[in-house]
């Protein structure tokens, strides 16, 4: 409550300050008028005619330039001591100003070639010595031709006081139209550019309204015109006002949902009447048009407003309310300005539409800006949505890859288990079962049992070498076999030569083939150890490649023993070796020369598993290369 009261008091104080007229300045209320020769002083016997201020007079187009002297009187109790001044707020014709017969200043007047329409105020200082106690006379010698002319707002008083009023008047009559015109220019350019990019009715209307406002502001800022161009300046004013009013009416009709073709053409038709009549009558109709047609424009917009209010009564949105309010204010301002111009209302410091117009333009632009902002927000939202969907998708892909990888792993494990089962069945299992039967029959000596068990353990170690986690390196497994058998060869006095120096560091092959190949080599070595009576056995490992063919692995087990007799070449051990070689897709050949030695040659085509590289498990998230690699490893 208290805040409100304080606020009210402050407002009242501000209003009082603004409204307070300088006590010592005098506003002159009447003027004497007499026609003279152009540039000449009035004759002594001149007929003076008295008029009240503000004074408004018109002259028809084509009438000649006339000389005019205006006489104003002000009474002083005593001659002033400080600088004095006369303010001509609205003396449209200008003129030479003198006080008590002495000139104090000259404002350009119309001449044969130029018309003037001063809207700006003029402040003329008066030397206090010119003033006397009692009545003082101010003479304005001026001239006028066609058009509407004014004399209003003549004030006399101390320079300091009057110049304050002058500043206010200058702002209202000159600076404000500049501001409005500049603002409207910016709007017009901006929305015209927008419209070029996007043909949208709202944008077009704002651009048009702004353009009309630019024209209207120009009219108020042009104060001197060549004689022939004056009528065009009036035309400019009519076009600007008519156009602006039509645009406003269209905006309102659109708000009312009645922007049909006919509804749009009627205001346009009415607006065209003014400029058309002006051209047709060559400017003669201007006073009548001013009085009748201009208020008609206001009425037209008001009708549009009524439509908008009636139809939108139930569903007003904030932005529409802003637009409707701004138009309402503009209508009131236009009506007020008209009232002032017609002399129905007291003279005002400034024209209300100079304020209301730019505000209206800003209000019209808000829906466009709002829509732009909303679209931007939607776009950002859409982008965010898209991003989150992409992320989701990525997650899904990742999960799929993980599942795939897991599946591969499971598959690999199953394959390995299968391999182990098969191997147990064929190898160790069979061996143990048959040994058990022999032991039960009592057919074996202790040494033979030990031998069988040792072989079983050997077999198991071979399997472990072959099946060890991630071990598809044939070379190390073969090496281990050699490492284990070495002591036995040493014990038997047989030299075991191992030649693998030309081999790559690792030789990764199909895991299914590792154990059979190990068995083949083990069998060869065991045969040489047991039966050959050799002094040396050599194992040579070699990888050869001819042209673009797949590289071949060759393992040669050679001894310098007694050789194998012809009938034993097809023996059971050798048959086993051959079948193993066939199973992995290799070939096995046996060369034996009795008395010279035996050579077992095994060749095997290295497939896509073959690589000389060490594989380290990749633990990157979505590494395509790693995934492809894994497909390659586990897929075939």
């Amino acid at each position, binding site marked *: 409550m208290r805040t409100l009261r304080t606020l009210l008091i402050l407002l009242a104080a501000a209003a009082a300050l603004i409204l307070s007229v300088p006590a010592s300045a005098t506003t002159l209320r009447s003027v004497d008028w007499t026609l003279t020769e152009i540039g000449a002083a009035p004759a002594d016997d001149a007929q003076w005619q008295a008029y009240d201020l503000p004074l408004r007079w018109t002259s028809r187009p084509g009438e000649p330039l006339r000389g005019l002297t205006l006489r104003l009187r002000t009474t002083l109790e005593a001659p002033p001591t400080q600088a004095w001044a006369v303010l001509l707020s609205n003396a449209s014709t200008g003129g030479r100003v003198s006080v008590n017969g002495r000139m104090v200043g000259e404002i350009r007047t119309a001449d044969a070639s130029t018309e003037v329409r001063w809207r700006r105020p003029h402040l003329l200082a008066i030397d206090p010595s010119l003033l006397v106690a009692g009545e003082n006379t101010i003479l304005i010698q001026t001239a006028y031709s066609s058009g509407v002319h004014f004399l209003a707002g003549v004030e006399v008083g101390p320079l300091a006081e009057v110049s304050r009023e002058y500043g206010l008047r200058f702002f209202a009559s000159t600076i404000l139209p500049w501001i409005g015109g500049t603002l409207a220019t910016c709007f017009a350019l901006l929305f015209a550019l927008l419209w070029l990019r996007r043909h949208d009715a709202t944008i077009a209307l704002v651009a048009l309204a702004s353009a009309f406002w630019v024209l209207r502001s120009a009219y108020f800022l042009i104060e001197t015109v060549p004689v022939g161009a004056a009528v065009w300046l009036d035309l400019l004013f009519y076009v600007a006002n008519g156009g602006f009013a039509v645009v406003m009416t269209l905006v309102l009709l659109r708000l009312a949902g009645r922007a049909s073709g006919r509804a749009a053409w009627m205001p346009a038709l009415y607006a065209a009447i003014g400029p058309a009549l002006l051209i047709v009558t060559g400017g003669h109709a201007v006073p009548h048009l001013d009085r009748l047609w201009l208020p008609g424009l206001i009425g037209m917009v008001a009708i549009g407003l009524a439509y908008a209010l009636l139809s939108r009564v139930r569903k007003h949105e904030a932005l529409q309310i802003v637009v409707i309010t701004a138009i309402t204010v503009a209508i009131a301002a236009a009506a007020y300005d008209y009232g002032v111009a017609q002399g129905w209302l007291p003279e005002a410091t400034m024209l209300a539409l100079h304020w209301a117009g730019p505000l209206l333009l800003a209000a019209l632009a808000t829906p466009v800006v709002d829509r732009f902002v909303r679209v931007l927000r939607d776009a950002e939202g859409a982008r965010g949505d898209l991003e989150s969907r992409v992320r989701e998708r990525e997650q899904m892909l990742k999960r799929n890859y993980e599942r795939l990888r897991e599946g591969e792993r499971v598959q690999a494990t199953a394959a390995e288990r299968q391999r182990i089962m098969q191997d147990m069945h064929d190898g160790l299992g069979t061996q143990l079962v048959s040994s058990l039967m022999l032991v039960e029959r009592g057919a074996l000596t202790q040494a033979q049992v030990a031998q069988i068990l040792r072989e079983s353990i050997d077999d198991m170690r071979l399997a472990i070498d072959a099946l060890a986690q991630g071990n598809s390196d044939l070379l190390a497994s073969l090496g*281990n076999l050699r490492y284990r058998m070495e002591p036995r060869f040493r014990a038997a006095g047989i030299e075991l*030569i191992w030649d693998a120096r030309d081999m790559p560091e690792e030789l990764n092959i199909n895991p299914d083939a590792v154990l059979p190949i190990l068995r083949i080599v083990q069998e060869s070595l065991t045969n040489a150890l047991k039966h050959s009576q050799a002094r040396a056995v050599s194992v040579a490992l070699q990888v050869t490649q001819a042209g673009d063919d797949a590289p071949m692995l060759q393992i040669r087990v050679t001894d310098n023993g007694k050789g194998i007799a012809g009938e034993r070449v097809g023996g059971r051990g050798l048959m086993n070796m051959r079948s193993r070689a066939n199973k992995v897709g290799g070939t096995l050949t046996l060369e034996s020369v009795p008395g010279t030695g035996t050579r077992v040659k095994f060749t095997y085509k290295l497939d896509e598993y073959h690589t000389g590289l060490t594989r380290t498990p990749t633990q990157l998230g979505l590494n395509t290369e790693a995934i492809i690699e894994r497909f390659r490893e586990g897929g075939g």
Partner: protein
Amino acid sequence: MSSEKTTVLIVEDEPEFRMRFKQIVESEPTLELIGVAANKREAQELIDRTKFDVMLIDLGLPDGNGTDLIRQVSAKRPDVDIMVVTVFGDEQHVVSAIEAGATGYILKDSTAADVVSCIRLLRAGGSPVSPVVARSVLRAIRNRMGGAGGGTTRPGGASPDNNPLSARETEILQLLAKGMSFNEIGEILGISPHTVTAHIKKIYRKLAVHSRGEAVYEATQMGLLRS
């Protein structure tokens, strides 16, 4: 080789094998049995109480994994040779034991002569290694290097800053992994087989030191140790 007897400590939970190792040591005049433990607790007592040159240890003990004991002994007494007893000599068991500080391993079914010669090899400064273990050691070291050289066969290993092995040591490991014997490697490189085994022992030690450093680093990271 010193003229004094090599003192041996046996840690083995299975009575059959305990007896067998005991017999092997006792029947070898150059060896002297210091003690026999059947579990970690007993072994701990003996380690605290006695002095020995060689420890034969089975990793799978009834009251825990023997790796702790290996780490402890190798840290406290670097001069002791630790020999892991394993059934298969498979890479997983052997490499983790080497990382803990073991310098040798023997298979459980080794003959008495094998056991004795293995102990002699260790005392002479060498270490046995099978091709699969050699290859695993190579891999372990490469993985330590952050996988930098993990996929290559560049001679002498990858970047020298991370690789604790010398070029010669890497070369020896590579030849071993291919199945070449100490003698053959010696011939190829023009060094004695004894030097080859000595290199291997050095490699084992480096791997152990390296993994110990890592363990300390990791423990510090986890806040278990104050740095």
